[in-house]
């Protein structure tokens, strides 16, 4: 009954929106849909190409391995794309992404601390899934505290935030390396193993649980999207329009930390991937609605990781790694963005 009611409301809303849209506006909507559809199609092509390119030897073995690889690439691309775009909106800046703010460095630190205090025996005894969930939980907790502190302050100066992020990131990295130096060699090896996972070797169990968390995170984002449209107007306007600003920002940050945990758990830190993906998505998808933007960013993210790894893995024969390429391209892009914003 209520479902039917909701359906009917939606239908009248859609009809009204159509009726009150000018031809130009309808053209724009169609254009956005087409762009998103093309992106989706490209993603499918990339995935299929990755799976089937130049299979030698056992088809079954290749499929099994490659499905896991491509699965983790898709999960990482989606998580990084969605979290980075949404984070940009909250931070009110195109330059700030979770990685730039030292988020994934925090993930590694949390992991190191767990090994440091409980030893690698406990760490290994826990299943992959439990380990990830504990890590993610701790990250969400710490991340929330950190960001409440950062954004709660009066200084919303962009450069200050970038600086703080970079300082915090290197602080976390130093703490991580300090803690790992104090560890016993055994513990250290265990840690190395989990910290620098690559796309080539993916644990099936981990992929399942991480993929599930990613889906949950993305779904949790959906009802927030139309509030994020208002956040994009700036704090003052959002408050004036009656948006529960702090609740929206806090919830979104929680989802962002979760998604960062997802991607870092699978492939380790990828400093500039989010930056490239989110900004590309904003350029490619000419919309202010976060339903379009986030979907676009997810698709661009999947495309970037799958196509990128296809090139690095298949065409370049693993001559380099995806993170190296991403950091090279992304680093240059980051500097360009900074220069354009700051006009040095």
């Amino acid at each position, binding site marked *: 009954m209520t479902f039917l009611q909701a359906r009917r409301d939606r239908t*009248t*809303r859609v*009809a*009204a*929106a159509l*009726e*009150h849209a*000018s031809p*130009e*506006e309808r053209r*724009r909507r169609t254009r956005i849909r087409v762009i998103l559809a093309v992106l989706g199609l490209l993603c499918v092509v990339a995935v299929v190409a990755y799976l089937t390119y130049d299979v030698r030897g056992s088809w079954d073995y290749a499929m099994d391995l490659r499905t896991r690889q491509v699965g983790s690439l898709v999960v990482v691309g989606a998580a990084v794309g969605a979290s980075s775009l949404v984070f940009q909106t909250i931070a*009110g800046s*195109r330059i700030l992404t979770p990685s730039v703010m030292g988020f994934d460095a925090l993930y590694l630190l949390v992991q190191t601390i767990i090994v440091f205090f409980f030893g690698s025996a406990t760490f290994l005894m826990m299943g992959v899934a439990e380990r990830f969930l504990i890590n993610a939980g701790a990250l969400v907790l710490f991340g929330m505290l950190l960001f409440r502190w950062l954004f709660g302050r009066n200084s919303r100066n962009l450069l200050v935030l970038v600086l703080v992020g970079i300082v915090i990131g290197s602080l976390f990295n130093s703490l991580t390396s300090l803690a790992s130096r104090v560890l016993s060699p055994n513990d250290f090896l265990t840690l190395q193993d989990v910290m620098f996972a690559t796309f080539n070797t993916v644990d099936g169990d981990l992929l399942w649980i991480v993929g599930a968390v990613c889906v949950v995170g993305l779904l949790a984002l959906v009802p927030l999207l*139309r*509030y994020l*449209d*208002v956040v*994009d*107007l*700036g*704090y*003052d*306007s959002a*408050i*004036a*329009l*009656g*948006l*529960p600003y702090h609740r929206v920002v806090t919830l979104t940050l929680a989802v962002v930390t979760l998604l960062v945990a997802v991607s870092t758990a699978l492939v380790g830190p990828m400093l500039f991937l989010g930056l490239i993906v989110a900004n590309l998505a904003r350029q490619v998808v*000419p*919309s*202010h609605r976060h339903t379009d933007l986030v979907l676009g960013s997810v698709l661009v993210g999947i495309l970037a990781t799958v196509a990128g790894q296809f090139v690095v893995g298949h065409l370049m024969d693993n001559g380099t790694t995806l993170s190296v390429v991403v950091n090279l391209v992304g680093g240059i892009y980051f500097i360009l963005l900074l220069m354009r914003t700051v006009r040095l």
Partner: protein
Amino acid sequence: MISVRDITHRYDKQVVLDEVGLTLPVGQLTSIVGANGAGKSTLLSVISRLIKPERGTVFIDDLDVQTAGADAISRRLAVLRQDNRITARLSVVDLVRFGRFPYSKGRLTPEDHVVVDEALDYLDLQPLRDRYLDQLSGGQRQRAYIAMILAQDTDYILLDEPLNNLDMKHSSSMMTLLRRAADDLGKTIVLVLHDINFASCFSDHIVAMRDGKVVVQGTPAEIMQRETLREVFDMDIHVQDLNGMRLGIFWTTGAPVGPLPLAGQPETDGSPGQAQDEQAAEFAWRA
């Protein structure tokens, strides 16, 4: 009715609002004037709950701004601030639709669309409705923001320096527009203004602030007095009556430039002669 009760607020240790109490009349256009740092914008921010004051309360009708739900307030009170960032790819009509957010939370009903169209019509924005905000001139963009505020359909509208960055033509048409909204639509409009002459010509009521306090308030005729203005702005401003408009001549400090017809106003200050002499001396020097 907006009633401000005993508001005190500090930035660090600097007192910006000092036990401000104020009642703003309904259905009228009220201007808040004062020098930079007098606390005008802060007061507006407190009323619109952008800032939580250290002490004191603000009531909109019977609603306490701090405790009432964000929803309820945003259906009665609309605010336009200066620092509007436009990062998103937003067209005029998209922006105006945000005005309906308090009602439909981004899912516009057929009625919402009607209100949006009315707001666009009211501000003659239909021809520009599909332009992106960064393709508009300052005056057009300001009008788009006003349309959003009108679409919010509130009884009270607060505007923080709406004439900033507008040229003379757009300033005067903006004020005419606000005046019209107060008269035709019965809105209660409160604005922070820097130009006392706009305040004088367009408001029903003027509130003058200095050092975080309300120094004086009243009708334009009451406020636009040389002594009062001296008290508020710490400037000697000659006031001239021109067909019922009271204008402050503030471009030159002190007395009027040259021999102006002083519409029956007795000269209380001793200085005009001296000022004229200086003027003459300057001209002589230039020549």
